């Protein structure tokens, strides 16, 4: 506080003269450049006086930014939405060759019990030739290679591919087929043909028992 007081008292005197000469002189930082013309002691007083204005305006700016933070962060997912970020699914009833559609974070998730033939077909593919090279093992859990769990969101523009419900078209590679722009996915849900750039995404998941899988 004492330094502040000193600043003020030294600032006062030159300020009177200067302001009398140009009553409307802008006190913003810009004016400081002009003040350089004043002689030694007076000049430094003026600069110190300007410091108060700069500090006050900066404080106001910082305050406005601090208030803006909650006003923006309110838009991100609220606590009740985040609470649903993980789900547990009982997969005991899904027979080989069947799949179910469930919903996770308001997005469709495909859970598919692959038949041995489908697993074999997926493993036969030369990984190097794929657009998004990944093996089936990399997309499933060890010992549970028949459980293919992917997001049902086409990596092209976000449509839901067909092939999870019985009777739906599974595409040329026996996996999934996106009808919007014709992307074909194979039995490991890897992109094989069409505009989609990536394989169907595999969410974070884990088997918490033999038949219950936790997604998210």
């Amino acid at each position, binding site marked *: 506080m004492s330094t502040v007081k000193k600043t003020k008292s030294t600032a006062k005197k030159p300020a009177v003269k200067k302001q009398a000469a140009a*009553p*409307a002189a*802008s*006190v*913003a930082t810009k004016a400081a450049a002009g003040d350089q013309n004043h002689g030694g002691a007076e000049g430094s007083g003026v600069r110190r006086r300007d410091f108060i*204005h700069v500090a*006050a305006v900066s404080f*106001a700016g910082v305050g406005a930014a601090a208030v803006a933070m*909650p*006003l923006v*962060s*309110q*838009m*991100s997912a*609220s*606590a*009740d*939405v985040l609470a649903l970020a993980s789900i547990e699914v009982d997969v005991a009833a899904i027979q080989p060759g069947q799949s179910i559609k469930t919903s996770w974070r308001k997005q469709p998730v495909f859970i598919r019990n692959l038949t041995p033939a489908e697993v074999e077909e997926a493993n036969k593919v030369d990984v190097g030739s794929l657009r998004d090279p990944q093996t089936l093992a990399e997309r499933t859990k060890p010992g549970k290679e028949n459980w293919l769990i992917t997001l049902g969101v086409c990596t092209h523009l976000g449509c839901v591919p067909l092939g999870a419900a019985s009777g739906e078209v599974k595409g040329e590679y026996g996996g999934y087929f996106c009808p919007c722009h014709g992307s074909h996915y194979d039995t490991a849900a890897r992109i094989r043909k069409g505009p989609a750039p990536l394989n169907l995404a595999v969410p974070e998941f884990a088997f918490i028992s033999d038949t219950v899988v936790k997604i998210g």
Partner: protein
Amino acid sequence: MSFPWAQEYKPQGTVSKWVDERLPLPRLVYNAVGAGYPVPRNLNYFWNFGVLAGVALVIQIVTGIVLAMHYYASVDGAFNSVEHIMRDVNSGWFVRYAHMNGASFFFIVVYIHIFRGLFYGSYKAPREMIWLLGVTIFLLMMATAFMGYVLPWGQMSFWGAQVITGFFSAIPLVGEPLRQLLLGGFAPDQAALNRFFSLHYLLPFIIAGVIILHIWALHIPGSSNPTGVSVKGEQDTVPFHPYYTAKDGFGLGVFLIFFVAVTFFAPNMLGHPDNYIPANPLSTPAHIVPEWYFLPFYAILKAFTVDFGIPFTGIIIIPAKLMGVLAMFGSILLLFFLPWLDTSPVRSGHYRPLFRKFFWYGLIPSLAILTYCGGKPPYTQWVVLSQLAAAYYFAHFLIILPIVSRIERPLPLPNSITEAVTGKPLPAAA
């Protein structure tokens, strides 16, 4: 503007010049709230409240837009969506409490702004238009605040909507159909809630528009001042920037300290517990009261207890209920006529000894009593007090002010603002 010595906007860089030639918006701002607007040098702190009211409106609009992102106007979901904001939305409690208390602080600031105008005669020629626009803003604010209070759909929201739209049913012949038109039904329900939300979102922007007119009208004659003496020359004024921007910055800090103290430490102090009970159309709260800023008008409404009719015939010309409603609206509408009711050529209350007495010992206490009694149950002592205070309120504006303006002998006015400030006559003032 109207002062020849006002500084002219001089764009510095090439970009500024380029913009100025095509869209002179910076010039407009410079002349409105920059160095280009000369303001009397003697304004006191009461002149801070215009800017503060503008800040309060901005706070309400910004927080309101955020709340509308999460609120849903449904009779089943509105209450829970507000609680969702309070509990689950990130910083939602802050935004909601700021909006809730922001409304109260908006009214505090505007009331002080209005009383400043009343005391210093800011409504007098040549500033009548500024005053008329100001009263319009006040009416719009009241409508906006009322509809906003309905949105959480708590008990007070619901019964407030019921009672306030009930005013209209007092109007003869068209009353009941008009009420049904306003509510979109026989009682407040989904239709009413939805339209109140729509209008509550719309009106603040209309208020902002009228504020622009208010400021425009202000810049024709320039700001009034505590002496009420007109500006005579350059020595009487200082440029708005930096002089009053700095003063307003300080005033803003003080205002925000009060606002923050209430919002963060006593956010429900100005509210009513019953509004944390979801609306129940089958049960009225024991004691319904409007928000504090409507209490004086509510007291006036309740103060009318006898019918106006021909004595001993039983013929009623104006029933008490209708009279209460007319008087309540009248108590605000009479402000529109104030510039022509107070005919004294002296503006400032400082130089009007009689006016000043009636202002401090009549008007202010009567409004304080009305505010207090408005929130009280209808017991004899409160009814009597509010009847006295309301009678004074109408007499003050409609009878006393015109008479005082005629008979009062004002004190000698200073020759100029500068003389009033420095205490010595300047050659320039002669």
